[in-house]
Protein backbone atom coordinates (compact mmCIF):
# COMPACT_ATOMS: atom_id res chain seq x y z
CA UNK A 1 0.00 0.00 0.00
CA UNK A 2 2.78 2.38 0.98
CA UNK A 3 4.67 1.50 -2.18
CA UNK A 4 1.63 2.31 -4.27
CA UNK A 5 1.20 5.65 -2.52
CA UNK A 6 4.90 6.39 -3.05
CA UNK A 7 4.63 5.53 -6.74
CA UNK A 8 1.62 7.80 -7.21
CA UNK A 9 3.40 10.58 -5.33
CA UNK A 10 6.57 10.32 -7.44
CA UNK A 11 4.49 10.23 -10.62
CA UNK A 12 2.53 13.34 -9.63
CA UNK A 13 5.65 15.24 -8.60
CA UNK A 14 7.80 14.33 -11.58
CA UNK A 15 5.32 14.09 -14.47
CA UNK A 16 5.75 16.58 -17.30
CA UNK A 17 3.75 19.72 -16.64
CA UNK A 18 2.12 22.11 -18.99
CA UNK A 19 4.60 24.77 -20.12
CA UNK A 20 4.12 28.14 -18.50
CA UNK A 21 5.16 31.66 -19.45
CA UNK A 22 8.77 31.06 -18.39
CA UNK A 23 9.25 27.73 -20.19
CA UNK A 24 11.87 27.92 -22.93
CA UNK A 25 12.43 25.23 -25.54
CA UNK A 26 15.27 24.88 -28.03
CA UNK A 27 14.82 23.82 -31.66
CA UNK A 28 17.20 23.14 -34.53
CA UNK A 29 16.81 23.53 -38.27
CA UNK A 30 19.17 21.87 -40.76
CA UNK A 31 19.25 23.80 -44.02
CA UNK A 32 20.65 20.84 -46.00
CA UNK A 33 22.25 23.33 -48.39
CA UNK A 34 24.85 26.07 -48.17
CA UNK A 35 23.80 29.36 -46.65
CA UNK A 36 25.93 32.47 -46.60
CA UNK A 37 26.58 34.96 -43.81
CA UNK A 38 24.32 37.58 -45.36
CA UNK A 39 21.34 35.24 -45.39
CA UNK A 40 22.22 33.97 -41.92
CA UNK A 41 21.97 37.56 -40.70
CA UNK A 42 18.68 38.11 -42.53
CA UNK A 43 17.21 34.92 -41.08
CA UNK A 44 18.40 35.88 -37.59
CA UNK A 45 16.87 39.36 -37.84
CA UNK A 46 13.64 38.00 -39.27
CA UNK A 47 13.32 35.42 -36.50
CA UNK A 48 13.81 38.02 -33.79
CA UNK A 49 10.75 39.80 -35.15
CA UNK A 50 8.55 36.72 -34.81
CA UNK A 51 6.24 36.19 -31.86
CA UNK A 52 7.59 33.98 -29.08
CA UNK A 53 11.23 33.84 -30.16
CA UNK A 54 13.77 34.06 -27.34
CA UNK A 55 17.23 33.73 -28.88
CA UNK A 56 18.66 32.81 -32.30
CA UNK A 57 21.97 31.54 -33.65
CA UNK A 58 22.36 30.84 -37.36
CA UNK A 59 25.69 29.23 -38.21
CA UNK A 60 26.56 29.43 -41.93
CA UNK A 61 29.65 27.27 -41.36
CA UNK A 62 27.51 24.26 -40.44
CA UNK A 63 24.27 25.36 -42.15
CA UNK A 64 22.39 24.96 -38.89
CA UNK A 65 19.91 27.29 -37.23
CA UNK A 66 19.34 27.10 -33.48
CA UNK A 67 16.61 29.03 -31.74
CA UNK A 68 14.83 29.03 -28.42
CA UNK A 69 11.18 29.95 -28.09
CA UNK A 70 8.35 30.24 -25.60
CA UNK A 71 5.99 27.31 -26.30
CA UNK A 72 3.03 29.19 -24.84
CA UNK A 73 3.41 31.75 -27.64
CA UNK A 74 4.48 29.72 -30.66
CA UNK A 75 5.66 26.29 -31.75
CA UNK A 76 8.79 25.16 -33.51
CA UNK A 77 6.81 23.73 -36.41
CA UNK A 78 4.97 27.01 -36.92
CA UNK A 79 8.27 28.91 -36.90
CA UNK A 80 9.84 26.54 -39.41
CA UNK A 81 6.82 26.69 -41.74
CA UNK A 82 6.92 30.50 -41.69
CA UNK A 83 10.66 30.39 -42.28
CA UNK A 84 10.18 28.18 -45.34
CA UNK A 85 7.55 30.53 -46.67
CA UNK A 86 9.81 33.56 -46.33
CA UNK A 87 13.19 32.23 -47.44
CA UNK A 88 14.42 30.35 -50.49
CA UNK A 89 15.90 27.42 -48.56
CA UNK A 90 13.27 24.85 -49.42
CA UNK A 91 15.33 21.86 -48.26
CA UNK A 92 15.39 23.00 -44.65
CA UNK A 93 14.04 20.54 -42.10
CA UNK A 94 13.47 20.74 -38.41
CA UNK A 95 15.77 18.27 -36.67
CA UNK A 96 13.79 16.23 -34.17
CA UNK A 97 15.84 13.83 -32.05
CA UNK A 98 14.61 10.27 -31.78
CA UNK A 99 13.96 8.54 -28.47
CA UNK A 100 17.31 6.81 -28.95
CA UNK A 101 19.07 10.16 -29.51
CA UNK A 102 17.59 11.47 -26.28
CA UNK A 103 18.80 8.44 -24.34
CA UNK A 104 22.45 9.20 -25.10
CA UNK A 105 24.88 12.00 -24.59
CA UNK A 106 24.79 15.12 -22.51
CA UNK A 107 26.38 13.68 -19.38
CA UNK A 108 25.71 16.74 -17.24
CA UNK A 109 22.00 16.08 -17.54
CA UNK A 110 22.65 12.59 -16.24
CA UNK A 111 20.00 10.40 -14.73
CA UNK A 112 19.18 11.37 -11.23
CA UNK A 113 17.33 8.94 -9.01
CA UNK A 114 14.12 10.91 -9.44
CA UNK A 115 14.47 10.79 -13.24
CA UNK A 116 14.97 7.03 -13.17
CA UNK A 117 12.05 6.65 -10.77
CA UNK A 118 9.91 8.87 -13.00
CA UNK A 119 10.68 6.80 -16.09
CA UNK A 120 10.06 3.56 -14.22
CA UNK A 121 6.71 4.73 -12.91
CA UNK A 122 5.72 6.37 -16.18
CA UNK A 123 6.01 3.00 -17.87
CA UNK A 124 3.82 1.39 -15.19
CA UNK A 125 1.09 3.97 -15.75
Amino acid sequence: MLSAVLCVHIYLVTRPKTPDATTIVMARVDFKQDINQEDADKITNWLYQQKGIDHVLCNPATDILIFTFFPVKTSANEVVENLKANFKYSKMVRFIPSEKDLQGGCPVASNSFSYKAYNFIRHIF
Partner: protein
Amino acid sequence: MLPCILITLAFAPSCKKSSSSSPKTLYDSLGGTTMVADPSNPGTKIEQGRLGIRSVVDSTIFIIAADTSINKYFTVLLAEVTAGNLSGFSALSKNLTDFFCVATGAKDFTYTGKSMTAAHDPAQNSRMNGKADAADFTQFVNDLVAGSKKNGLSDQIIGRLGTIVNTLQSQVVQR
Protein backbone atom coordinates in the same frame (compact mmCIF):
# COMPACT_ATOMS: atom_id res chain seq x y z
CA MET B 1 26.74 31.87 27.93
CA LEU B 2 28.35 35.28 28.40
CA PRO B 3 31.91 33.98 27.93
CA CYS B 4 30.80 32.37 24.69
CA ILE B 5 29.41 35.66 23.41
CA LEU B 6 32.56 37.53 24.45
CA ILE B 7 34.78 34.99 22.73
CA THR B 8 32.65 35.24 19.60
CA LEU B 9 32.81 39.04 19.63
CA ALA B 10 36.56 38.99 20.27
CA PHE B 11 37.17 36.79 17.26
CA ALA B 12 34.67 38.44 14.95
CA PRO B 13 36.89 41.30 13.73
CA SER B 14 39.82 39.03 12.97
CA CYS B 15 37.58 36.64 11.06
CA LYS B 16 36.28 39.49 8.96
CA LYS B 17 39.79 40.73 8.28
CA SER B 18 41.01 37.35 7.14
CA SER B 19 38.04 36.83 4.82
CA SER B 20 38.49 40.24 3.20
CA SER B 21 42.13 39.47 2.46
CA SER B 22 41.37 36.12 0.83
CA PRO B 23 42.04 36.04 -2.90
CA LYS B 24 39.21 36.92 -5.22
CA THR B 25 37.60 33.90 -6.81
CA LEU B 26 36.63 33.88 -10.45
CA TYR B 27 33.02 34.02 -9.26
CA ASP B 28 33.86 37.24 -7.39
CA SER B 29 35.48 38.67 -10.52
CA LEU B 30 32.26 38.05 -12.42
CA GLY B 31 30.31 40.08 -9.89
CA GLY B 32 30.04 37.62 -7.03
CA THR B 33 27.05 37.76 -4.72
CA THR B 34 25.93 41.28 -5.64
CA MET B 35 22.24 41.02 -6.37
CA VAL B 36 21.06 42.38 -9.71
CA ALA B 37 17.85 42.21 -11.73
CA ASP B 38 17.46 38.95 -13.63
CA PRO B 39 16.76 39.85 -17.26
CA SER B 40 15.23 36.42 -17.91
CA ASN B 41 12.85 36.56 -14.97
CA PRO B 42 11.40 40.07 -14.61
CA GLY B 43 10.83 41.08 -11.02
CA THR B 44 13.42 38.72 -9.59
CA LYS B 45 17.05 39.16 -8.54
CA ILE B 46 20.06 36.99 -9.23
CA GLU B 47 23.67 37.02 -8.04
CA GLN B 48 25.73 38.90 -10.60
CA GLY B 49 28.33 36.13 -10.69
CA ARG B 50 25.66 33.54 -11.47
CA LEU B 51 24.11 35.77 -14.12
CA GLY B 52 27.51 36.11 -15.80
CA ILE B 53 28.08 32.37 -15.75
CA ARG B 54 24.55 31.58 -16.94
CA SER B 55 24.99 33.99 -19.84
CA VAL B 56 28.22 32.29 -20.88
CA VAL B 57 26.70 28.83 -20.46
CA ASP B 58 23.62 29.70 -22.54
CA SER B 59 25.71 31.23 -25.33
CA THR B 60 27.98 28.18 -25.27
CA ILE B 61 25.01 25.82 -25.46
CA PHE B 62 23.80 27.59 -28.61
CA ILE B 63 27.23 27.35 -30.18
CA ILE B 64 27.52 23.65 -29.28
CA ALA B 65 24.03 22.91 -30.61
CA ALA B 66 25.08 24.31 -34.01
CA ASP B 67 28.51 22.65 -33.92
CA THR B 68 28.36 19.40 -35.89
CA SER B 69 31.58 18.10 -34.35
CA ILE B 70 30.09 17.65 -30.87
CA ASN B 71 26.34 18.34 -31.04
CA LYS B 72 25.67 14.61 -31.27
CA TYR B 73 26.39 14.46 -27.54
CA PHE B 74 23.81 17.15 -26.83
CA THR B 75 20.63 16.16 -28.68
CA VAL B 76 18.85 16.14 -25.32
CA LEU B 77 18.94 19.94 -25.61
CA LEU B 78 16.16 19.59 -28.15
CA ALA B 79 13.84 17.70 -25.80
CA GLU B 80 10.70 19.76 -25.36
CA VAL B 81 9.52 19.59 -21.75
CA THR B 82 10.54 16.99 -19.20
CA ALA B 83 9.83 16.42 -15.54
CA GLY B 84 9.81 19.57 -13.46
CA ASN B 85 8.59 21.65 -16.40
CA LEU B 86 12.14 22.06 -17.73
CA SER B 87 13.00 21.54 -21.36
CA GLY B 88 16.30 19.88 -22.23
CA PHE B 89 17.78 23.30 -22.85
CA SER B 90 16.65 24.71 -19.51
CA ALA B 91 17.77 21.62 -17.60
CA LEU B 92 21.24 21.66 -19.14
CA SER B 93 21.53 25.41 -18.66
CA LYS B 94 20.70 25.04 -14.96
CA ASN B 95 22.97 22.03 -14.40
CA LEU B 96 25.95 23.54 -16.19
CA THR B 97 25.42 26.89 -14.49
CA ASP B 98 25.35 25.18 -11.09
CA PHE B 99 28.49 23.26 -11.97
CA PHE B 100 30.45 26.32 -13.10
CA CYS B 101 29.19 28.44 -10.20
CA VAL B 102 30.61 25.91 -7.75
CA ALA B 103 33.80 25.43 -9.77
CA THR B 104 34.46 29.17 -9.87
CA GLY B 105 33.99 29.66 -6.14
CA ALA B 106 30.30 30.37 -5.53
CA LYS B 107 29.18 29.56 -2.02
CA ASP B 108 25.40 29.78 -2.41
CA PHE B 109 24.89 26.99 -4.93
CA THR B 110 25.48 23.28 -5.11
CA TYR B 111 26.05 20.92 -8.00
CA THR B 112 24.26 17.65 -7.33
CA GLY B 113 25.08 15.80 -10.54
CA LYS B 114 27.54 13.00 -11.01
CA SER B 115 31.28 13.55 -10.72
CA MET B 116 32.91 14.43 -14.04
CA THR B 117 34.61 11.04 -14.16
CA ALA B 118 31.40 9.12 -13.51
CA ALA B 119 29.33 11.35 -15.80
CA HIS B 120 31.64 10.68 -18.76
CA ASP B 121 32.08 6.96 -18.18
CA PRO B 122 29.54 4.92 -20.19
CA ALA B 123 29.83 2.15 -17.60
CA GLN B 124 28.59 4.48 -14.88
CA ASN B 125 26.35 6.75 -16.91
CA SER B 126 23.98 5.17 -19.38
CA ARG B 127 23.38 8.51 -21.08
CA MET B 128 27.00 8.63 -22.22
CA ASN B 129 26.92 6.68 -25.49
CA GLY B 130 30.68 6.54 -25.93
CA LYS B 131 33.86 7.79 -24.35
CA ALA B 132 34.87 11.35 -25.21
CA ASP B 133 38.27 11.88 -26.78
CA ALA B 134 40.69 14.80 -26.60
CA ALA B 135 39.32 16.33 -29.81
CA ASP B 136 35.80 16.43 -28.34
CA PHE B 137 37.11 18.10 -25.21
CA THR B 138 39.13 20.64 -27.19
CA GLN B 139 36.09 21.51 -29.27
CA PHE B 140 34.01 21.96 -26.11
CA VAL B 141 36.65 24.36 -24.78
CA ASN B 142 36.70 26.22 -28.11
CA ASP B 143 32.93 26.63 -27.96
CA LEU B 144 33.14 27.76 -24.33
CA VAL B 145 35.71 30.39 -25.28
CA ALA B 146 33.47 31.58 -28.12
CA GLY B 147 30.53 31.75 -25.71
CA SER B 148 32.64 33.74 -23.25
CA LYS B 149 33.71 36.20 -25.93
CA LYS B 150 30.11 36.69 -27.03
CA ASN B 151 29.44 37.90 -23.51
CA GLY B 152 32.38 40.29 -23.47
CA LEU B 153 34.57 38.45 -20.97
CA SER B 154 38.14 39.68 -20.94
CA ASP B 155 40.98 37.44 -22.10
CA GLN B 156 42.23 37.35 -18.53
CA ILE B 157 38.91 36.05 -17.20
CA ILE B 158 38.63 33.58 -20.08
CA GLY B 159 42.13 32.37 -19.25
CA ARG B 160 41.14 31.73 -15.63
CA LEU B 161 38.01 29.91 -16.78
CA GLY B 162 40.14 27.86 -19.17
CA THR B 163 42.45 26.89 -16.31
CA ILE B 164 39.50 25.56 -14.33
CA VAL B 165 38.06 23.68 -17.30
CA ASN B 166 41.41 22.16 -18.23
CA THR B 167 41.66 20.57 -14.79
CA LEU B 168 38.67 18.45 -15.86
CA GLN B 169 40.31 17.08 -19.00
CA SER B 170 41.70 13.95 -17.38
CA GLN B 171 38.27 13.17 -15.94
CA VAL B 172 36.32 13.85 -19.12
CA VAL B 173 38.66 12.36 -21.74
CA GLN B 174 38.57 8.61 -21.19
CA ARG B 175 39.96 7.26 -24.47
